[in-house]
């Protein structure tokens, strides 16, 4: 159970392939939500996935985290096919994710919700100790600090503002000390200062070696934050490359962006 003690970000050589998909497709009956996506996630980098609503971004994230069954294609972690690995194993191999909607457990406090993220790495002895004396493991304290949710720890999720709830979700994902962090629209519902804060956090985590896959609507943030962008439309691959190039790509602009993003990328 607790074999992956050693997956704290150890900063391997930046730029080696950590996660890869080959011709991944997810079809629901006749609907091709994702249709033949190849992506490469390099260690210590942030890959952004860009696309209009319903372009299959979240489904792709589901497929990569094995919560959505693949219709076709292969998914590789460290060069090894994990298409048949039980989805629950992925967390133990260092993949953490957040969801598009707030999914905090309503009957647990914020602190407990974040602790849930670190529970999979908790040694057996610590689990038993926790029954007697409450202890907050170090990764949890660290995640709380980084996301700045320290003053709401004793509240219940129902008492939080939407933006704060999203930050708690990021904290929960970080509490597992993942190797790869996948974020599904992490700043949705946040105000501008909060967004900048999260973007800054993601960049800092990247600089410390955390590999990230980011699905986001805020194009400015994507351009500022990601090392590479992959643009999708209707389940298909549209463009890929450096953020500034991708947002200027005519196909991408036609599918999704307004003209004003030209300027954003030029800045």
């Amino acid at each position, binding site marked *: 159970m607790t074999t992956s003690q050693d997956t704290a970000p150890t900063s391997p050589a930046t730029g080696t392939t950590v996660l890869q998909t080959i011709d991944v497709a997810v079809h629901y009956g006749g609907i091709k939500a994702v249709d033949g996506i190849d992506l490469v996630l390099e260690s210590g980098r942030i890959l952004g996935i860009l696309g209009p609503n319903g372009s299959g971004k979240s489904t792709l994230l589901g497929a990569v*985290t094995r*919560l959505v069954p693949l219709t076709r294609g292969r998914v590789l972690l460290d060069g090894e096919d994990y298409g048949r690995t*039980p*989805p*629950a*194993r*992925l*967390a*133990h191999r260092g993949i*953490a*994710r957040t*969801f598009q909607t707030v*999914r905090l*457990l*309503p*009957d*647990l*406090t914020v*602190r*407990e919700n974040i*602790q*849930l*993220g670190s*529970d*999979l790495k*908790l040694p057996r002895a610590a*689990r038993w100790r*926790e*029954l007697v004396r*409450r202890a907050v493991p170090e990764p949890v304290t660290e995640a709380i600090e980084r996301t700045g949710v320290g003053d709401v*720890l*004793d509240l*219940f999720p129902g*008492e939080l503002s939407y933006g704060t709830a999203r930050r708690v979700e990021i904290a929960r994902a970080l509490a*597992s000390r993942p190797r790869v962090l996948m974020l599904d629209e992490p700043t949705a519902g946040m105000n501008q200062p909060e967004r900048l804060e999260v973007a800054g956090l993601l960049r800092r985590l990247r600089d410390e070696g955390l590999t990230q896959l980011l699905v986001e609507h805020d194009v400015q943030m994507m351009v500022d934050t990601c090392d590479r962008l992959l643009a999708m439309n209707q389940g298909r691959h549209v463009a890929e490359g450096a953020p500034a190039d991708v947002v200027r790509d005519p196909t991408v602009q036609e599918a999704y962006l307004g003209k004003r993003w030209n300027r954003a990328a030029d800045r």
Partner: protein
Amino acid sequence: MNQWYLSHEILIQGTFISLLLALSIQVPLRAGVFSFAGIGSYAIGAYTAAILTIREQVAPVVAIGAGVLIAAAAGYLLALLVARLSGLYLGMATIAFSLFLGVLATNGGDLTGGATGLFGALSTLTTAHVITITVLVLVALAASERGSFGRRVDAVREDPQLAVSMGIDVNRVRRRVFVISGALGACAGGMNTLLRTTVSPETVGFHLVVTALTMIIVGGALSWAGAAIGAVIFTWLPSVLQFVGEWQLLVYGIVVAIAAVYVPNGLLGLLQEGWRRLRRRGRRLPAGGASVAAAPVAEDPEEKLAALGGPTAEARS
């Protein structure tokens, strides 16, 4: 005291046994598994204990233990069979399984004594044994509601997909829950048989589903403490309500219906809700003079809940 104890011994035994039975439904429910297989396990435990005691004259611990093992194994197999079902469908499949066992008992010939059942299962099991076993079970269950164990079960119930993404093997949790439920049900059934020295198909019927479910719903489904509240209320209600006489069943039905509609988290849920409100009010008061006044108010429910061991008991720092 002693006089009171002697005249109420049957009720005391009944409280603990029905608590174990209620827990055999509550444990799966806490993990979001809507299974009544605990009722079938009760039948397995009851008949195994009776058969072994009457035919082989084994010690009660062996008679009950054998039933617990058989029911746990049956629970595991059942979990594999119904792995793809959930919600009402799972509920009905497990009700069908449990009631089928009752028909099996009716048709079991000499082994189960047919429609009349088995008599004369005399053993050395005492009320003290029953209480000890139940307390041990409660300690184990209370532990499973705390810390990482409790959080992970909560995740499986509230959001199985999220639980998976948190590295929790949801299917394994569900299988375990079936095994535990089987063991609890069989333990209750075995002990009841040995205390009453008899078992018959009528004692393992649909009414057990109703009894167990009502205890959990009225008490509160999310903690062992809720089941305990329910078990106490519904075991003692008939003797308290004697003034209502023949209308006892009616009152019972009305209480259950009202609880199901208006108090979905049971009495324990009400207590917890009240505690949270008090806590929130205390926090909003400005620091300084006002919070001094609030402090003693907040202390009381805290202790109350800690005594009950409810899930929020660990939520404080």
